[in-house]
C-alpha cells in the first residue's frame, strides 16, 4: 500500500538512480518484529522525514540501512550499489544521547573524527583535516567552541557538533536520528539551514523526526512508518490526515492544525 499513494511523482523521483533503495527489509529483536517487510525508495536530492509513533522502528530503519542492526531479511542499495560498497557516500548523525559526553576530548577532535574513514588505517589527522573540521564547525555556527571540552556543551551545541562531524564526511546521503530532539531554537534554525544547503547541493537527507507540525515546513518528502511502511512520497501527497491516522492508530498527537488542505499548500 502507499506506493500508489505517493511515490513516482515529482521530477526528482524519475530517471536517476535513487539515493536509497530498501527492499523487503525485516528486523526482529528476539522474534519480535521491529520492522516488517519494508520497501522504500528515496529519490536523490530530497529532504525526507521519517515519522511514526514511539516504537515504530524509525531509528531501527536508519540503523538497518547502515548495517548497525542485523536484518533478518532484505537488501539496501545506496546510489545503486550495496551499502557496504558505497558507505563512503553515507554520513550518519546518531542520537545525541548515544555517546558519553564526558569523554575526554574536544569539539574539534570530535568533528575531525568524521574524516577518519577517508584517512583509513594508521594515518593520523593533520592540518588539512583540522581545517575541514573548522569549516564544518563554521557551517553550524560553532567555530568559537572548537577548543571546548565536549562536556561543557549544551544539548543543542552537542547536536550541532554531531552535525558538523557528518558534514566533514563530505557524503551524498545523510542519515540523521532525531537531530531536533530537545534542542534550542537557535540550533533548530542552524540545522534547518544546513539541511537546505545540502538539498541545494543535490544531496539527500533522511531525518527521523518527531514534531509533526514542522514536517511540511522542513521537508519535501516523507515516510510514514509503524513497523510496516504506511506511506512514502512527497509531503504534499502523502502527509494527509488519513495516512497519519493510519500510522498513529487513530490518534494523531501534537497535530491539530494545519488541516490537510493547509499541508498541501505548504508542501
Amino acid at each position, binding site marked *: 500500500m502507499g506506493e500508489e499513494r505517493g511515490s513516482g511523482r515529482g521530477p526528482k523521483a524519475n530517471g536517476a538512480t535513487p539515493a536509497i533503495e530498501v527492499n523487503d527489509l525485516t528486523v526482529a529483536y528476539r522474534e519480535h518484529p521491529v520492522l516488517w517487510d519494508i520497501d522504500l525508495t528515496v529519490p536523490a536530492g530530497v529532504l525526507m522525514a521519517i515519522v511514526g509513533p514511539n516504537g515504530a522502528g524509525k531509528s531501527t530503519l536508519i540503523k538497518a540501512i547502515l*548495517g548497525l542492526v542485523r536484518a533478518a531479511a532484505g537488501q539496501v542499495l545506496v546510489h545503486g550499489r550495496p551499502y557496504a560498497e558505497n558507505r563512503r557516500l553515507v554520513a*550518519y548523525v546518531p542520537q545525541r544521547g548515544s555517546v558519553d559526553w564526558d569523554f575526554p576530548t*574536544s569539539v574539534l577532535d570530535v568533528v575531525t573524527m568524521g574524516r577518519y574513514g577517508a584517512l583509513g588505517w594508521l594515518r593520523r589527522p593533520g592540518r588539512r583535516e583540522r581545517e575541514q573540521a573548522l569549516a564544518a564547525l563554521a557551517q553550524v555556527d560553532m567555530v568559537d567552541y572548537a577548543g571546548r571540552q565536549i562536556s561543557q556543551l549544551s544539548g543543542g551545541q552537542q547536536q550541532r557538533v554531531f552535525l558538523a562531524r557528518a558534514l566533514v564526511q563530505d557524503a551524498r546521503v545523510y542519515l540523521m536520528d532525531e537531530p531536533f530532539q530537545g534542542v534550542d531554537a537557535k540550533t533548530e534554525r542552524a540545522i534547518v539551514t544546513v539541511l537546505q544547503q545540502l538539498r541545494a547541493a543535490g544531496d539527500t537527507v533522511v531525518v527521523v523526526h518527531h514534531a509533526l507540525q514542522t514536517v511540511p515546513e522542513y521537508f519535501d518528502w516523507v515516510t510514514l512508518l509503524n513497523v510496516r511502511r504506511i506511506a512514502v512520497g512527497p509531503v504534499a501527497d502523502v502527509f494527509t490526515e488519513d495516512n497519519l491516522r493510519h500510522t498513529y492508530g487513530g490518534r494523531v498527537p501534537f497535530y491539530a492544525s494545519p488541516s490537510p488542505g493547509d499541508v498541501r499548500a505548504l508542501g
Partner: protein
Amino acid sequence: MSVFQDLFFDYTLRTVALGTAALGIVSGVLGTFAVLRRQSLLGDAISHAALPGIVLAFALTGSKATLVLVLGAAIAGWLGTLLVMLVVRSTRVPEDAALGIVLSVFFGVGLVLLTFVQRRPTASQAGLDRFLFGQAATLLERDVITIALLGALALGCVALFWKEFKLLSFDRDFAATLGFPVRVLDVLLTSALVLAIVIGLQTVGVVLMSAMVIAPAAAARQWTNSLTIMVLLAALFGAIAGVTGAVISATGSHIPTGPMIVLAATTVVALSFTLAPERGLVWAALRRRRQRHAVGAEAVLDDLYALARQHGAAVHGHEVGVLDALRGRSVVRRALAQLAEDELARSDEQGRWHITASGRAQVERDRTGGA
C-alpha cells in the same frame, strides 16, 4: 634516604622498581581505555580468570618461567572474556552478572588446581601462590625483560591504532559506519588489556590486579580533559603506585606486594578525587558554596526590594531583624555583606538596610528578563 640509595644501587631493589614501573605504565595506559569504555569490571574478570591458566601452564610444562606462566594466564584470561561475551550474546543474563559468574568460576577452579598442584611431592611447585597476592621481591631480571617486552607489545598496539581506539571508545556505531571493523578493534584492544593484566600478576596478584587497571586511569581523568594527557598521566600514576608499593613491600618484612601497590594507588586516587581542579570534591564544594551565597544574596535583595515597595518610600530602611525573619540569620549576614560589597544595598548609621538604585535596577532587570 637509604631506600632511595638502594633504589639506584641495590641490584634486587632496582630490578623490582624497574619491573613494577613498567607494569604500572602499561596497566595505566590500557586501564584508561577500559575505564572510558566502562569495562573496569572486565579487568577484574580477566585477572581472576587467569589463575587456572597459570597453574595449568605450570602443571603441563613443569616450568616456572615467567613467559610460560604469563602465556597460560593470557590464554585463560582470554577464554574468560570470550565466555562473558558468549553468555551475554546467547542468554538473557546481563553483562555484570556474566562477568561475576565467569570471574568466580574461573577463580574457584584456579584455587582448586593450585591446592592440588601444591600437594604434589615435587619441590618445584613452591611459589605459585605468590600469584594470589603478588610478590615483587621474587622479580628477577629476566622477569623484568619479559614484562617490558610484552608491555611494549601492548603499548605499541595502542600507539599504532590510537585514532581507531579513540573512535571506538567514544562512538562505536559511528566507527562502524565509517567502515572500521569494530569487532576486530574490540578484540585487539581487549587483547592488549589482557597482556597488560597478565604481566602484572606475579607482582600484584590476581586478586588485586584490577585496581592497577582502574585506579591510575580514574585518578588521571580528574586532572585533564584530553585523552592523550589522560593516558600519559595514568601511565605516570601507575608507575608511581607500582614502584612505591613494591619498594615498601620488598624492603619491609615480606608484606605481599599487591596490597601495598593498591594502597599506593588508592592514595593517588584519593588525592585526585579531592584536590583536582574542576572535578575534585574540594572544588565542587567551593563552587556549590559560591552558588549558594549568590542565590542567598539575590533572595535578600528581592526581600529588600519588596519591603521598599510595600512601604512606598524608596529610602525606607529596615532592621536586620526583619530580614532575618524572612530568610534566617546566617544567610542574611553573608548576603548583606555581599550586597554591600556590590553596592546593591547599604546600611545607614542606625544599622538599617536600604536597597540602592542599582540594586533596584538589578531586581527589575531580573524580573523582566525572567518573564
